[in-house]
């Protein structure tokens, strides 16, 4: 931790070698996050590039309160969100009713690799992908998501439901079998 604090302090002084060290420390985790929010690796790289430039530019604002990893992660997610907001008009999504009846997959779960799931999540429409990531993986509430994405809470809920349906269908199609969890 002391090592990380030292790197952060050097980064705050604008030290390039410390910035490189910081990048090497967090690049894998942050690229993983970017891949989840992006439609492909090229877009993930864009998020990463813009996100890290922001990290280096704003690192002086980090006051060692709370987790640095959480701070850097939030910057990456916000970068992805900002990009989404810019392109949101390009991907209109109709309001949909909430799907209550969902079929679940079971045994396949353990055999699915992260890369397979990544491919599936990247195939989601941008807004569904965004809502699903924020709700299911980051743990934000629908109210928070609605504020972040400038949509209504109901839209967030319906987007999530629709995302779940699509994901479920994709997982099933991907593995070519249909087994009910319950």
């Amino acid at each position, binding site marked *: 931790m002391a090592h990380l604090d030292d790197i952060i302090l050097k980064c705050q002084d604008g030290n390039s*070698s410390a910035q490189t060290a910081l990048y090497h420390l967090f690049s894998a985790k942050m690229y993983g996050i970017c891949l989840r929010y992006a439609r492909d690796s090229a877009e993930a790289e864009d998020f990463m590039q813009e996100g890290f430039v922001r990290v280096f530019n704003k690192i002086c604002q980090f006051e060692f309160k709370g987790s640095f990893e959480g701070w850097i992660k939030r910057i990456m997610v916000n970068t992805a969100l900002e990009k989404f907001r810019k392109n949101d008009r390009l991907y209109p999504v109709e309001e949909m009713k909430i799907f209550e009846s969902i079929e679940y997959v079971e045994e396949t779960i353990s055999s699915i690799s992260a890369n397979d799931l990544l491919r599936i999540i990247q195939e989601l429409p941008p807004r569904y992908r965004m809502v699903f990531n924020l709700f299911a993986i980051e743990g934000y509430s*629908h109210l928070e998501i609605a504020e972040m994405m400038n949509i209504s809470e109901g839209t967030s809920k319906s987007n999530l439901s629709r995302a779940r349906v699509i994901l479920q269908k994709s997982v099933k199609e991907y593995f070519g079998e249909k087994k009910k969890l319950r």
Partner: protein
Amino acid sequence: MNRGNNPIDQLFKEKLGNLEENPPVSLLSRINEDMISQRKVRRINQVKTIMGIAAALVLALMAGWFTFDQKQVKQNSEASTSFTKASPDQLAVNQKNVNSSIAVKSNKSKGSVKSANKSVSPAKDAQFASLEKVNEQQAAEKPKEESAANQAKKEPSADWLKNQPKNQQYYSGNNEQASSARKTSSTINLWSIKAEISQTFTAMLSGTSTPGTDTKSLNTVGTGMMASYKVSGRVTISSGIRFSQMKQGSHSAYSLNQTAGIIYLQPVEKSGNLTRDVSVYLPSVSSIVYSNGMAINGSNVFVSDISQELKYLEIPIQATYKLIDKKFTVGVTGGLSSNFLIGNTASIVENGITLSHGNTDNIRNVLYSGSAGVEFGYDLGNKLILTVEPRIKQFMHSVSVNEMVNIRPMQLGIFTGIAYTF
């Protein structure tokens, strides 16, 4: 909607929540490039802002000076007009007084003559008559003298004008004279603009390399555009904008020490391919040169040359005191400058082939410097002056923010320029 109960949510969170994936190697260099370009944009914006403020200040000063000038002209013109208007009446009164006093005197003398006449002989009478004629002539001449005196007050002579301070020259007398005085004064050129250029030689004040490493400063070019205002007979204040460079070449990059000024050389993509990932660390950090991201031991180092170049935009404030002010002028100059970093490039060359481009890290964005010189000028006529000014510039602090790198360069240039006065 409960997040805890949904298996799809759980599946994705479990598998992707802590996903780690190595990004492409080139991404770091793209980020660094982005940072460099953003820094450049910020620097340019800073310089633009400062130049804008400087220009606004100069304009405000000029406008203030012009307004003050006009106000003074108006005030003095009004004063002169009221003086001119009052003069005829005043003259009439004066003349009346003079006439009446002369008349009284004349009458008195006449009376005395007449009263005396009673007991004086005809010869004496003739003498009195001739005296009376002289008195009358004097009475007639006195108003003329008074009037001429008033006229002289109204219209000061050219000699008098020349002997007056500049402002009084402008504003004394009536409008025609003020105008003619202004015309006379306009031949004294208060403003001048000058373009100058010189080859500059930079000397580093600190050691630049370890023994056996050849590091030397390379000659560069400095240019500038200055505006000057003559505040008094001998003193001129100048400001403007100058461009200066510093260039340093080092042989055997691997053996550079901390005073070489290179902390980190940023590898850059060249034509889509990373030519060589070269990062130079100083001995205080590490005495290793990295090549292709791998540390190389001392026996396996490559011999390469590093070239570094720093470009500055300088905003000087300079004063010149003229020791000789004739057709040939000599003056001493001194001033202070703010130097804004606008260019920072570095490259590694191996066997004549440039392997990597980048920048020198930890370079200070703004530097302050002092300068001193001797300016020689020769009046070419047509308001043009040829100037030659040997000038030394000393940076007040290190070019690097790194405490270990204490380089305060001194630059010498023989600036040749042409000034236009107006």
